[in-house]
Structure formats: structure tokens, C-alpha cells
């Protein structure tokens, strides 16, 4: 039987298991929406206020569920609005299928109304993209997109569909989903050599990145840690993946990571890098990263080998598959001396001072995460609050901490929180944000109200772009250029204007009362908490620095 291209698109999406779409209608996608009208009982459609928010929502949905996020935008501005969202997912290797409409084929290249070459524009922020100009190729293209997005190193894929393709008729015979591309194959002798490095090390440290999360390799990693008593540090992409903080799980490494994590890397004799890319926020100074250590790396992406740090041995493969083969070859060891040394490092870890009345970020975040338990999904925007949350959120399960790690996208949070809640309706979702990040995409509060998506947004308001101010404070001679934000903004009224419930708190007691009340509400809430403008994220190793340069006060 023949269907329009738009119907074929929807049918293929359903076949691929899609039940949720974040999209925004428009002229070039009106046919998709016309088809979607008949599938409202099978596909939940969330319309954001802005396509960027829609892409972030699809991203938050994907990060928190492990499924593929799907978003739709119209041609021209709809498509360009999505770009920051696509780039955010690209930098953190999150699988998305992004669908854009384009003008009809006879108008392509004529600078028609709302025409943009989104295929060309998104080439560098997608793993692959397609322009569909023939309805006969639509089903295959959509299936390819899902396979590419989820094969190997995951990433967004964009499909740009010309308007007449969605109107033209073609047969729809459902084909099977395309298999994922085979993961890179490794030889047994590679695993043996890797095991030899690990068995011969006296002071090994595991440095685990987002690839461990993508591969769902958290249990295997924990087994490796336990079997051979190897301590591990995580990047911001791997919060929760190592389980609870204990003797072996040292917590976050890098610019605002724990001293003990950074000193453990510095003093190790072997760094075991798993699914990570030695970014400039961890390997801050590539010439002095783990100076006395051999470095071994496992990653699914061959181009990450030696890219930022020259390694001694590399295995290209899926982290879960490699660890599964590796585990039987690993000797059990006690490593008492090394673990004692790390315990010594922990004594010098930074402890933020506590306060009874004034709200301190770390106390506030710890309070909230304790109240809501380990199923809580924590979402952040980008800036100081992001680092405080990363330091204190105490997540113990994978996919319970969502943040824009690679691109560092202010404005990521609200959309991502919506996506997380839509994907996990039974789990509480809290967004920690700052006044700068929140105002970037606060229009998504409307989305949360419209769809009654219960999220709690806690705005740490210091009336400044805190992280930039911190750099100006510490590194730019206190020249606070263009960072302060006006005090005239009323977040309670703002929430009410959107149809949400808002709170504003100056003290710890006020916050506790507001928070307790907020959790009884049915819809989204925002809680503004006033914090000191000069509150710093500590410890800090400045860009390009080493553990010698740690700033503690």
C-alpha cells in the first residue's frame, strides 16, 4: 500500500521503537505534523518553546534512558536553532536522530523562504547527515540514521527532508532495523599485553570517561576495581558510573576535581584510561600528565588513541567487551601501600566551610540529593553551579547525572531536565542552574507547564556569571568586565507568569521550607536561592596547570 513520505517517516520511527519526539512544527514539516495527527496515541510529542530546547530535551532523554533521542525542526531558523543542541550531544557522544524539513526540491538552491543548507551547516557537528530528495529512499535513510547514531562511538545524525518528499507517495513495506556496525575487533594477545601492564603495576589508577557509560560497562569496571584493588577516578561524564564513593572510587578528577584524584594520577605508575579522551579539563598540562606513569588506553574510537596524550599501549574496542575479556587475566592484589598513600592524599582534600544561616552551595546540593535519594536524576547547566553539583551530587548509578561536559552549553539544563523527566516519569528530576544559564533558555519553563512535566529547578543566584567572575577574580586582577547581572529580576513572579510555582530563599531554613513545599506540587517549580557573589569553586587547577598549581582558597 502507498503512503505519503511523512507517513512513511512516522511508520519507520515507530518501527525503530520511537515513542517520544521533541519537535516544533513549521512550514517545511507541516506534512510530518499532519501525519503525526493520526499517531497521537502511539507517539508522545513534546513541543518546546524553542528548537534548541527541543534538541537539549531529546539529548536529556537519551542520556537518562540510553535510548536514541529524536527531535524535529522546520527548515531555516528551526533547523539553525537546533544546532547548539546537536553540537552539545556531538561533543558528549550522545545518540540523536534530528529531523529537519527543507523547502521543496524545485526551490532548493534558490534562496527560497526559510531555506538554509542545514546539511552543509551541520556536517561538522554530526557523525553523519543525509539530505533526502527521493521518497523511495526515505525508509532506508531513517534506518541508516538510527544504526549510525548507535554504532561505535555514539553521536547525533541529521536527516534533512525536502518538503515534496514528505508529500510524495511510495510503498511502505517495513524492513528490519539495520544492525549496528560491528564493534572494533581486538586480539587475545592485545588483552594479554594490557593485563600484563596492569598486573605489573604497583600504583595503578583507572581514569574512566563517558565511554564506560555509553558501553554500559559500569559493572565490569567495578569488578576490575574490586578484583585487583585498583582505585579509579571519574570525569564529569562518568559521575555515578563508579558506584558509591569508597576506598576505591576516588571521585572526580580534573580542573575542579578532588585533590586526591589529581594526586593519585600524578603519583601513579600506570594510568588505565577507559573510554576517555584526556580532555584539556583533565589532562590540563599534557606535558606533565601522570609524569611517572605508563599510560594504557581503551576506546572504541581509534582516532582518540594518542590524540591528546601519547600512550604506551592502546586497545581499540568497546570498553565492556575489552573488560569482559580482561577480567579473567587480572591478578588479585591488595595494594595496601598504594591505597594507604591515597588515603593520605584524601586528608588534604578540600572541604568547603559550612554555615548555619547563609546558604552555601555544597550544603544546599547535598541536602537536596539526600532528600531525594539515589534514583534522583540530577541535571545541570554550565558554570560554577555545575562544578559544585558535580562535586556534591553523590550519584551512585549511571545515567543519573546529566551535564554538558564537552561543549559546556549554558542553557542546556532546562531542556535536558524536561527530556529526562519525560523518559523517566517515575524518578524525581532536579535541575541545578545559575542565574546566567537559567535565563538563557528559561522559556522552556512554558514547555514544562504546558505538558505538566514535574521538574524542580534550583537557581543558585549570585547575580553574576559566576565562573567567568571567578576567573576574573583569580586570574584577571578582579576586573569584573560584563559579568554582573541585575538584581531587579523577580523569579517568583516569573514562575507565576509562566503558570508555575516559584520560591525565593535567602536562608537555609527558608530553603528547607520552600523545598518541602515544592515537592508537594504537581507541576514544575523553580526555587531561587541567593548565594554570595564571591563564592568560589574550589579546588581549582588553572588551565594548563598541574597539581603544583592547585588553588585552595
Amino acid at each position, binding site marked *: 500500500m502507498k503512503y505519503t513520505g511523512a507517513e512513511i517517516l512516522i511508520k519507520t520511527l515507530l518501527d525503530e521503537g520511537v515513542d517520544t519526539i521533541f519537535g516544533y512544527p513549521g512550514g517545511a514539516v507541516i506534512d510530518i505534523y499532519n501525519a503525526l495527527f493520526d499517531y497521537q496515541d502511539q507517539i508522545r510529542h513534546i513541543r518546546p518553546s524553542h528548537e534548541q530546547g527541543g534538541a537539549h530535551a531529546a539529548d536529556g532523554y537519551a542520556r537518562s534512558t540510553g535510548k536514541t533521542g529524536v527531535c524535529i525542526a522546520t527548515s531555516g531558523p528551526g533547523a539553525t536553532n537546533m544546532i547548539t543542541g546537536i553540537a552539545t550531544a556531538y561533543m558528549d557522544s550522545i545518540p540523536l536522530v534530528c529531523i529537519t524539513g527543507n523547502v521543496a526540491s524545485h526551490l532548493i538552491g534558490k534562496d527560497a523562504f526559510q531555506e538554509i543548507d542545514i546539511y*552543509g551547516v551541520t556536517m561538522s557537528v554530526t*557523525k*553523519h547527515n543525509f539530505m533526502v530528495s527521493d521518497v523511495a529512499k526515505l525508509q532506508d535513510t531513517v534506518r541508516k540514521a538510527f544504526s549510525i547514531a548507535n554504532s561505535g562511538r555514539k553521536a547525533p545524525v541529521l536527516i534533512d527532508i525536502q518538503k515534496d518528499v514528505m508529500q510524495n507517495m511510495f510503498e511502505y513495506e517495513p524492513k528490519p532495523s539495520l544492525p549496528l556496525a560491528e564493534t572494533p575487533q581486538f586480539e587475545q594477545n592485545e588483552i594479554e599485553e594490557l593485563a600484563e601492564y596492569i598486573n605489573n603495576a604497583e600504583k595503578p589508577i583507572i581514569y574512566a570517561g563517558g565511554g564506560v557509560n555509553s558501553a554500559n560497562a559500569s559493572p565490569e569496571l567495578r569488578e576490575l576495581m574490586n578484583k585487583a584493588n585498583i582505585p579509579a577516578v571519574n570525569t564529569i561524564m562518568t559521575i555515578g558510573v563508579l558506584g558509591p564513593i569508597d576506598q576505591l572510587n576516588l571521585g572526580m578528577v580534573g580542573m575542579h576535581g578532588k585533590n586526591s584524584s589529581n594526586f593519585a594520577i600524578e603519583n601513579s605508575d600506570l594510568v588505565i584510561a577507559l573510554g576517555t579522551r584526556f580532555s584539556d579539563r583533565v589532562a590540563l598540562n599534557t606535558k606533565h600528565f601522570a609524569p611517572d606513569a605508563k599510560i594504557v588506553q581503551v576506546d572504541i574510537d*581509534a582516532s582518540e588513541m594518542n590524540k591528546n596524550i601519547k600512550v604506551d599501549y592502546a586497545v581499540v574496542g568497546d570498553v565492556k567487551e575489552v573488560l569482559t575479556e580482561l577480567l579473567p587475566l587480572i591478578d588479585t592484589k591488595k595494594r595496601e601501600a598504594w591505597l594507604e598513600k591515597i588515603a593520605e592524599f584524601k586528608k588534604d582534600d578540600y572541604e568547603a566551610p559550612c554555615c548555619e544561616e547563609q546558604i552555601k552551595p555544597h550544603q544546599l546540593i547535598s541536602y537536596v540529593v539526600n532528600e531525594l535519594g539515589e534514583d534522583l536524576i540530577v541535571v545541570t547547566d554550565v558554570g560554577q553551579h555545575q562544578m559544585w553539583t558535580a562535586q556534591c551530587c553523590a550519584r551512585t548509578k549511571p545515567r543519573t547525572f546529566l551535564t554538558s561536559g564537552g561543549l559546556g552549553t549554558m542553557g542546556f539544563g532546562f531542556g535536558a531536565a524536561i527530556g529526562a523527566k519525560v523518559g523517566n516519569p517515575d524518578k524525581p528530576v532536579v535541575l541545578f542552574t545559575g542565574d546566567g544559564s537559567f535565563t538563557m533558555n528559561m522559556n522552556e519553563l512554558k514547555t514544562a507547564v504546558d505538558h505538566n512535566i514535574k521538574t524542580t529547578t534550583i537557581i543558585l543566584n549570585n547575580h553574576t556569571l559566576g565562573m567567568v567572575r571567578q576567573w576574573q577574580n583569580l586570574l584577571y586582577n578582579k576586573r569584573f568586565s560584563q559579568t554582573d547581572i541585575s538584581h531587579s529580576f523577580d523569579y517568583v513572579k516569573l514562575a507565576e507568569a509562566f503558570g508555575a510555582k516559584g520560591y525565593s530563599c535567602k536562608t537555609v531554613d527558608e530553603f528547607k521550607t520552600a523545598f518541602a513545599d515544592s515537592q508537594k506540587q504537581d507541576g514544575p517549580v523553580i526555587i531561587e536561592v541567593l548565594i554570595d557573589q564571591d563564592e568560589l569553586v574550589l579546588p581549582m587547577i588553572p588551565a594548563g596547570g598541574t597539581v603544583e598549581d592547585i588553588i585552595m582558597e
Partner: protein
Amino acid sequence: MKKMRVLSILVKNNAGTLTRVAGLFARRGYNIDTLTVSATKDPKFSKITLTAELDDFETSQLMSQTAKLQEVVSIEELFDHNSVLREILLVKVAVTHECRSKLIEIANVYKGVVVDLSRESMIIELTGKPQKIDAFISVIDNFNIINFCRTGVTAVQR
């Protein structure tokens, strides 16, 4: 150490593939010196041959990055010792009655062919390894070269 590398890339013959490859080089900060694209015996595929000044690390980085592109089937580095590398030069030189025969004499040594001749100028076509083209250009440097064009390297492994 940086040196001229010849990379041979087999790609799917789809619209936009060249942009993907060239764009990848540009955004990773590398300059392509020469580039040729041609058909292969299977019309579904094309061959991109490009040269760039790269060190060993840059070469392996770019090769592994390029290999990730969905449209790329394979990529390999070609070397002088295992491949035939060729380039075509067209050079237009202003000539007078006195110097014309001298130039033809030099062109003959390099097995160049005069493909256009007028009272004021001459166009010589020369095929050979890039080094041979370089040498010829340097030898005729004291003539009045109006302009020249090189095709860039194309290559086949032995």
C-alpha cells in the same frame, strides 16, 4: 618531522563526500596542498588523492579521523617506493626569438611537450613525479614565466 604525505582515500561516490573530507582537514587545522578526485572502475566509488605537509603523528591522526567518515571506505598512505606518483604541469612562458630554442631544449631534456606556441609565448606540458616538476620549474625560473598550473598528485600503488 613534517614531510609531504600522499594519502589515497577510497570513498563512496555521493554528493558532499569531498566536502566532508576537505572539511575535516580544514577544521582540524591542516592545509591540503594538492587534491585530485577521480572515478574508479566501480562507479559507486571515487578515489581522492591528496597531499599535505604532515608529521607522523598528524598523519596517523588525520588518517584515523578520516576513516571515521561514513562515506570513506578506506584510506592509505602511499610512498614513493611502493607507488607510482604522477602530476601534470602546464606552464606558459613569455618567449623571444632568442630564447625560444633554449627553452625547447630544456623541455626536451625533461620530456616536456610544447602544446601551444605563439610569437610571444609558449605553453609546455610536462608529466612526471612531483619532484621532477619541481626541478623543471626551478630550471626555467630565469625565463619569464607568465603562469603555470599543476594538477596535483594522482597515484596508484604498485
